[in-house]
């Protein structure tokens, strides 16, 4: 599924909304997540997952062709940790969304 397919599905599901509004909604969601990570914040969506940015230390890399050492600067890498419910659903386990209350 691509972003445009996601938008098309939402447009069909919400006939009372204009397509440009749906597009703005989808863009806002993903933009806010990216902006939060850029600020160093994390985003936690229960049942779905959590986005965070992991800091990587500077290191010395190597040009694989010449073998020359090249300094690699410190950087932040976006990371997504799937939530329990989504992880189980992807793995084909029966989701107990409204099931027994065992914890």
């Amino acid at each position, binding site marked *: 599924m691509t972003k445009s397919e996601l938008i098309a599905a939402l447009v069909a599901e919400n006939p009372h909304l204009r397509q440009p*509004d749906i597009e703005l909604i989808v863009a*806002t969601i993903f933009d806010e997540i990216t902006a939060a990570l850029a600020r160093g914040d994390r985003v936690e969506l229960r049942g779905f997952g959590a986005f965070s940015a992991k800091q990587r230390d500077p290191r010395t890399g190597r040009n694989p062709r010449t073998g020359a050492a090249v300094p690699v600067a410190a950087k932040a890498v*976006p990371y997504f940790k*799937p939530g329990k419910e989504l992880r189980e*659903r*992807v793995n084909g386990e029966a989701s107990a969304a409204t099931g027994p209350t065992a914890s």
Partner: protein
Amino acid sequence: MNTLTRANLAEAIYTQVGLSRNESSALLESVLHRVSEALAGGEAVKIAAFGTFLVRQKGQRIGRNPKTGVEVPILPRKVLTFRPSQVMKARINGASPPLDDDAA
């Protein structure tokens, strides 16, 4: 470090799009639901300028209980991975916490 939740994202939709607060959070839920459904069906979800959610099939391997040392088989399973887009990586590093100005 702050943690954003559904409430923050719904608030952003409310201010950006001008829907009611209720409808803003309902739409956020729809988006997450659609993405989850596709992934549960094994389909990859590709959001341009954001990243790709991929379902990967892992084979069986032998694991070990770290406490007891007992070998246990880890069954084949499907795992969800996220590959951030170049655009997202650049944005996160563009305005990331200030680095030292001193030359190393």
